[in-house]
C-alpha cells in the first residue's frame, strides 16, 4: 500500500475540482474494490477523494416514468428498494447474485460500474499485465485463462468485466449520468465500458475529472418475464464464469420485446441487438432461444482453458430465456438452479 493524501469532497463540484487538479487522484466510495487493489499495490493513488458523503444516495422516479439512482446508493439498498423489487426485479436479482451481503452493504452503484477485472495477473504485480502496466504484455493469453473472455478480446488483453449489476443494467437499457469539468452528460451504459483493443488499461469512457452521478433506468422494467442466471464455481460468493440477464415482453407465447446480456464473457457486459431482434416476433420456444444464443455468441473464441465457456454460455442463455418466458426467474436465495 502506498501513502496517499485524503480529501473529503464537499460537493460534486469539489470532487471534480480535486480530481482535475491531481491526475494521480482516485475517487473512493465503498472502497471494496479500490482498497483491495491498493493493498496489492495495483492501484497507487496519490490522493483519495472521499465522495461517500455526497448527496448521491437518492432513488427517484423520473418524469418519463423511469428511475434515477444516485451513484452512492449502496448495492443492497438498491436491490431491496420497493420500486426496484416491483418494477426492475431483474436488476435486484443481478445485484443479489453478486459478492456477499457485507460487500453489497458497502458497495456503491458508481463503484460497481467502475470495479476492475479479477484477472489474477492484473492483481499480481510480479507478473506482466498490459492493463496494469501498459506495454508489459498479457500473461493470461498463454497462461491461466479459464476465467477469461470469449468475446471482444484483443491481442493485448482477454480480461472480463466482473460486475453482475452492470449486466442487468445493460439489458434494461440504462443511462449513465456523468458530471465533469465541462458540465453534465449522459451516455448509454452499453457504451460506457470499453473493449480492450490496444488500450486495456482504459476500462471505460469516463473522461479525466469526470464522475458518475447517477444511473437512469427507462420506464420499461420487464417485471414479469425476466431472469438473471449466474453460473460460477460454487453456488454463491464467486464471480461469474458466465451470467445471463434475460427480459422478455410476451404476447401470449409470442415475444414482442427481448433483452439479453451476458456477463463474465467479455471486457464489458455483452449485448447483441441482432440476437434480440431475432427473438422479436417469434414464439418463446427453446429453438428460438438457441438461435438467439448463437447470434449472441457469434464470433466467440477461446484460449487453452476457457473453451467450455462458449457451450456453457449457450446453454445458460437458453435456460435463462426459458426461466424468463415461464415467469419462473432464478431465485438468488435458493441453493439451486431452477
Amino acid at each position, binding site marked *: 500500500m502506498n501513502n496517499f493524501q485524503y480529501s473529503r469532497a464537499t460537493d460534486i463540484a469539489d470532487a471534480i475540482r480535486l480530481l482535475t487538479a491531481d491526475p494521480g487522484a482516485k475517487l473512493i466510495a465503498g472502497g471494496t474494490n479500490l482498497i483491495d487493489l491498493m493493498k496489492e499495490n495495483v492501484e497507487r493513488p496519490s490522493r483519495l477523494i472521499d465522495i461517500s458523503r455526497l448527496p448521491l444516495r437518492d432513488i427517484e422516479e423520473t418524469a418519463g416514468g423511469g428511475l434515477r439512482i444516485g451513484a452512492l446508493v449502496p448495492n443492497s439498498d438498491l436491490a431491496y428498494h420497493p420500486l426496484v423489487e416491483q418494477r426492475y426485479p431483474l436488476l435486484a436479482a443481478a445485484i443479489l447474485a453478486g459478492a456477499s451481503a457485507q460487500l453489497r452493504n458497502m458497495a456503491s452503484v458508481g463503484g460497481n460500474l467502475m470495479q476492475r477485472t479479477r484477472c489474477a495477473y492484473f492483481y499480481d504485480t510480479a507478473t506482466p499485465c498490459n492493463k496494469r502496466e501498459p506495454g508489459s504484455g498479457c500473461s493470461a493469453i498463454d497462461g491461466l485463462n479459464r476465467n477469461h473472455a470469449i468475446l471482444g478480446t484483443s491481442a493485448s488483453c482477454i480480461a472480463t468485466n466482473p460486475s453482475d449489476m452492470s449486466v442487468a443494467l445493460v439489458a434494461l437499457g440504462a443511462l449513465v449520468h456523468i458530471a465533469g469539468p465541462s458540465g453534465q452528460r449522459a451516455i448509454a451504459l452499453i457504451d460506457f465500458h470499453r473493449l480492450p483493443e490496444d488500450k486495456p488499461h482504459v476500462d471505460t469512457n469516463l473522461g479525466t475529472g469526470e464522475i458518475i452521478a447517477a444511473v437512469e433506468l427507462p420506464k420499461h422494467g420487464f417485471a414479469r418475464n425476466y431472469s438473471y442466471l449466474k453460473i460460477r464455481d*460454487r453456488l454463491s460468493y464467486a464471480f461469474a464464469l458466465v451470467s445471463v440477464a434475460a427480459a422478455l415482453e410476451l404476447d401470449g407465447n409470442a415475444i414482442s420485446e427481448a433483452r439479453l446480456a451476458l456477463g463474465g464473457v467479455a471486457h464489458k457486459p455483452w449485448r447483441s441487438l441482432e440476437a434480440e431482434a431475432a427473438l422479436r416476433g417469434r414464439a418463446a420456444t427453446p429453438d428460438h432461444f438457441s438461435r438467439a444464443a448463437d447470434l449472441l455468441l457469434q464470433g466467440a473464441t477461446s484460449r487453452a482453458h476457457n473453451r467450455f465457456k462458449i457451450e456453457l454460455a449457450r446453454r445458460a442463455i437458453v435456460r435463462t430465456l426459458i426461466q424468463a418466458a415461464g415467469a419462473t426467474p432464478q431465485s438468488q436465495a435458493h441453493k*439451486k438452479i431452477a
Partner: protein
Amino acid sequence: MNAYVGTPTSRIDGRAKVTGAAKYAGEFSADGLLYGFVVEATIPRGRIARIDAGDALQVKGVVDVLTHAHRPPLADNDDAWKDEVAPEKGSPFRPLYDDRIRFNGQPIALVVADDWETAKFAATRVRVEYDREAFATDLESEHGKAGKLDRPHKPRGDAAAALAGAAVRHQADYVLPTEHHNPMELYATTVVRDGSGRLTVHDKTQGVQNVHKFLCSVFNKKPDDLRVVSPYVGGAFGSGLRPQYQVVLAVLAALELKRSVRVVLTRQQMYGLGYRPMTIERVALGARPDGTLDAVTHEATAVTSRYEDFSRNDTGWAEQLYKSPNSLFSHKLVDLDLSTPCDMRAPGAASGVCALECAMDELAVALKLDPIELRLKCYSDRDQSEDLPYTSKQLRECYARGAEAFGWTRRNPAPRSMRDGKELVGWGMATGVWEALQMPVAVRIVLTSNGHAEVSCAASDIGTGTYTIVAQVAADALGLPIENIDVKLADSTLPQAPVEGGSWMAASSAHAVLGAAEDIRLELARLAKAVPASPLGGVDAPDVILVDGTIAKAGDKARAVSIADAMRHGKLERIEKQKLNHFAEDKSHARNTHSAVFAEVKVDEELGVIRVTRVVSAVAAGRILNTKTGRSQIMGGVVWGIGMALHEETVMDHRFGRIMNANIAEYHIPVNADVHDIDVIFVDEPDDRINRLGVKGLGEIGIVGVPAAIANAVYHATGKRIRRFPITLDKLLD
C-alpha cells in the same frame, strides 16, 4: 461417574470466543510495541543480488529493516532448526538466513516500524535485485524425476503377477491438487519483552513447547529466557504444527531492537507457508470374478521442496481396509522450487484414500457389484501390513447404519438412472480410515478446598474442543460440577504436551487428566479417612469415589466426607498432582478409526452445476467424549471434503512459479450455499483394549472418504468419471 463424558457438553470457551474475550496471538499488546511487515521474494529460485533498504529506512516511523545481511545471529546447523515435526531428511528453511531464494513468497526482509501501516508502506520501498536461476514448480512436467522413498508397508506376494492375471482389473491415476489450509486466523506472533529482557512469545501454533524448544535452539537461548503461549488458535488444520517463519522474524526483531514486536502475515503471505502437496495417485486393483481382491498396488507421487523430504502415508490404507493376498505400495517425491509441504487435515489419507475409494468404486462398476457389497467381500478383520487384529473395528456397522440412514437400498445402480427435474441424481459412497494414536501428555491438577480445580497442560486447543473435554473428564473424575473446573492450556511452562495433531490429543490429554485425578482421589481418600469419626473408616482406598464434591464409599454415597472437610482436617488449602499419562505398551493390535460416507449429488444436466444435497457420515471412533463438539468435528470434515471434491485448488502459473489465487476470494472453499444436509452417526464401538476410556480421537476421520464419496456420486449421476480434482463444471461439460 459420567455426568459429562459422552454428553453434548457445550464448549467452556465458547462464550469467550463469541464475545471477543478470547485473545489471539496478534491481539496481545505491550508498551512501545513495534510492528513488522514481511517483504517476500517474487521469484521462485535464485539469489538476492542486492537488497536496498535505504528508501524504506527514510520513511518516518520505520525503526529498522532486517535482512539476511543485517540481523542478529541465528543457529548455523540443521539440527538447531529441526522442530519436533520437521521431516527427518532435509535442511529446514531458515528465514533471513542467507541470500538464497528457495520459493516464491519466501520472506527476505522484515520492515519494523512504529505502526503496521507504516511498515507495510515502507515494505514497498525495499528494492531487491535477483540473480535468477532456472526453476521448476510443476509436478506433472517433472514427474519423470521422482525419487523413491522407503515406506513402512512391505510388499506382500507378487502384486504385478496377480494384477496381470486378474479376471477383472482397474487401474487409473487420480490427481489431487495442492491445497492451502486458510485457517480463519492469520499467522501472527506478538513478542512481549519485559524489563529484564525475557520474552513472552504469543504465537499462533499447534504446539507451544515445540515452538519454545525451536526458538531456544535457533536463538541459542536458555529455557527461562522465553515463554511461548497460545491460549486460543483460530484454526490451523496442521499448518501450525511446525513453527512458522513469522515467529522467527518477530523474535529476531525483538532481540535486535530490544523491544516488543508483532508480526502478522497477510492472507496472501500465508500462501508462502506449508500446504497439502499435489499428488498423483496411481491405484491398480485386480479382482477375481466373485469380487474378492487378488492384488492392490498404490503408488503416490507427490510434491516436496528441494530442501526437505516431506511425505505422509498416502498409500497402504488398503492394507487396513481390504483383504488381498498380493500388495505393493510406493511413495515417490519430486523436488520442486516450492516451500516444503506440511500436514493438512488427515495428511496422506485425505488424498490417498480418495484415490483408493474412487478406484474401488470403478472396480465395483467393472464387477457389476454394489459398492458396499464389494467392500464387504474384501473386508479385512486384520491389518495386513503387520497381520494384526484391531483393538476394535466397527466398520461393518458403519456401512450398515450409514446405508440405512441414507436409504442406499433405493439406489438404482445404473449411472444416469436417477433424476429430479433438470438434475441428474447420483448416490456414491466411500470408506474412511485414520489412525488412533496416543502420545505422552502430562497434566497438573490443583484442587482447592472450596471444591474448585485448575487443570493445566501445555497442549493447544486449535478449535477442536480440548478445553471442553479436559474439563469434562476432570469434572467426572473429581466428582465436581464442570463450572468448578478451570482449564489452562497452551503455555510452554505448563506440563508437557506434544503438538496438537494427528487426532491424538483427546485420548492423550483425557488419560493424563485421569492419572492426575487418580492421585488426587488417593490423597483425598487418605484425608477423608483421617477425619475424626470418618464415615469412611474401614473403607479401602479402591472403594472410595469422588462424587458431588464429596469423598464417598462406592455404592453408598451416604457414607461421605466433603472435600472441604477432608482438606480442612488435613490442614491443606490445595492439593497439587501432576502426572504423565501412561498407555500400556501393546504392539499386538492395530488401532484405527473408520467411517462410511454416503453422498447424494444433484447435477444440472445441461449446465454441469453440482450440488451435494446430502451427506451421511457414519463414524466408528471408540467412545465419543463429547457428542456435540465431536459432531461438529465430523461436520467440519464433511464440509472440507465437499471443498476437496468440488472447489479447492491452489492454482500456480509454472512460467512464473507463482500461486495465482493466493486469496480467499479466488481460492474457493464451500460457502453456505454449497452445504446442505449433513447427518453424523456415531456407531457404538466399545474398546476396552485401546485405553481406559476407550477413546480414539476424531480430528481427521471426518474428511477421509468424503471427496471420494462425492466423486463416486458424480459418476453415478452423470456417467462421467472425473479423476482430476476438484470436479469443476467445465470438466463435466467437456
